[in-house]
């Protein structure tokens, strides 16, 4: 009988340390929609950006116009690429559904859902149906020549109450949605922090890409918790052809 009692108690006792470990970090899971009333947490994140970081104020609905790069000092290669950029192609069947890289996607005004485990966090982004896997198991990034993608390869760790996510292996993609793109060498570091009431989430998004701009640049983004769910995006590249004039 004593043996049975011990056997019954054993699993919870064994699981207890794991449960405590999981409980020890903030719970970010849930449905989040972008917020435009940043709290004091945003200023805390701003203060942690490296000295000299240029904060670009174009998150959400604030797009920069053609020729406005938010104060970034562009490389000659980036300027050459911009000169050859044709905005008319953006509406073509070929490019209308170009998936933005995670750098654009994480500031876009669409919801995201977070699923959280001790060694893995999944971010389901509604915009272009992107799914991000954040590895928290201590692994590193793959070799530099490993395949790149629009979501990139992300590893994360906790620093106190903040989740730090380091992303590399990104395919080149738009950086400002106005003809200026980042390269495949972009290094993207995010710090996520819950608001005091647990109903808001804030992030700094630090980018470094010496091939196309000098120094470091960052966006500051906030979300509020909601009770909705992620809709499918299912981009249709033929959208622009409705009512299109015949050639």
């Amino acid at each position, binding site marked *: 009988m004593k043996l049975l009692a011990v056997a019954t108690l054993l699993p919870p006792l064994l699981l207890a340390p794991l449960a405590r470990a999981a409980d020890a970090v903030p719970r970010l899971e849930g449905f989040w*929609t*972008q917020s*435009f009333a940043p709290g004091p947490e945003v200023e805390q994140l701003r203060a942690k950006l490296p000295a000299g970081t240029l904060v670009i104020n174009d*998150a*959400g*609905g*604030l*797009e*920069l*116009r*053609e020729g406005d790069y938010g104060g970034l000092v562009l490389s000659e*290669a980036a300027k*050459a*690429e*911009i000169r*050859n*950029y*044709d*905005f008319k*192609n*953006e*509406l073509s069947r*070929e*490019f*209308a*559904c*170009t998936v*933005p890289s995670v750098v*654009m996607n994480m500031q*876009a*005004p*669409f919801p995201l859902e977070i699923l959280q485990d001790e060694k893995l966090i999944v971010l389901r982004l*509604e*915009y272009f149906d992107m799914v991000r896997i954040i590895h928290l198991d201590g692994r590193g990034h793959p070799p530099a020549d490993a395949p790149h993608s629009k979501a990139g390869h992300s590893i994360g760790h906790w620093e106190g109450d903040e989740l730090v996510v380091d992303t590399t292996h990104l395919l*080149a*993609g*738009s950086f400002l*949605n*106005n*003809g200026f*793109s980042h390269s495949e060498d972009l290094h993207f570091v995010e710090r996520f922090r819950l608001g005091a009431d647990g109903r808001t989430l804030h992030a700094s998004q630090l980018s470094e890409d010496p091939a196309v701009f000098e120094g470091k640049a960052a966006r500051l983004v906030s979300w509020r918790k909601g009770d*909705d769910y992620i*809709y499918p*995006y*299912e*981009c*249709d590249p033929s*959208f*622009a052809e*409705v*009512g*299109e*004039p015949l050639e």
Partner: protein
Amino acid sequence: MRLVLPILRSCQLMAVLLLAASAPGVMAHHSFAVHFVDDRVIDVSGTVTAFRFANPHGMLAFDVRKEDGSVEHWRAETNSPNVLRRRGWSKDSLQPGDSITVTGFPSRDGTPYMRISRVKFADGRELVGQGMAAPADDKE
């Protein structure tokens, strides 16, 4: 041979540089601020001919009868249907034959094309699209 190799290498380098210079760049999903006048809206009245409600943008086609009797074909895109579904829009929100007035941000190139801010029907109903101040949940 010693002369040929450096020349070949120079040619290869030149070819790479020329390719880089003529590369079309990494295309992106299209920008609102680049394509549309973002601080002014116009009103255009007409009759719906087609409507498709799919990401990345819904697309409305409508005909406008001008004073001289000719018809001008207009097109107007919405922001993302995902955003608009949460405001009550659906694929059936606009039907061919509907008489409408579209308020929207005009195309920068002057073509009969706009981004929808709102659609008003003859019976007074309204559909709300992108906000005038381009609030952040409206860009896409």
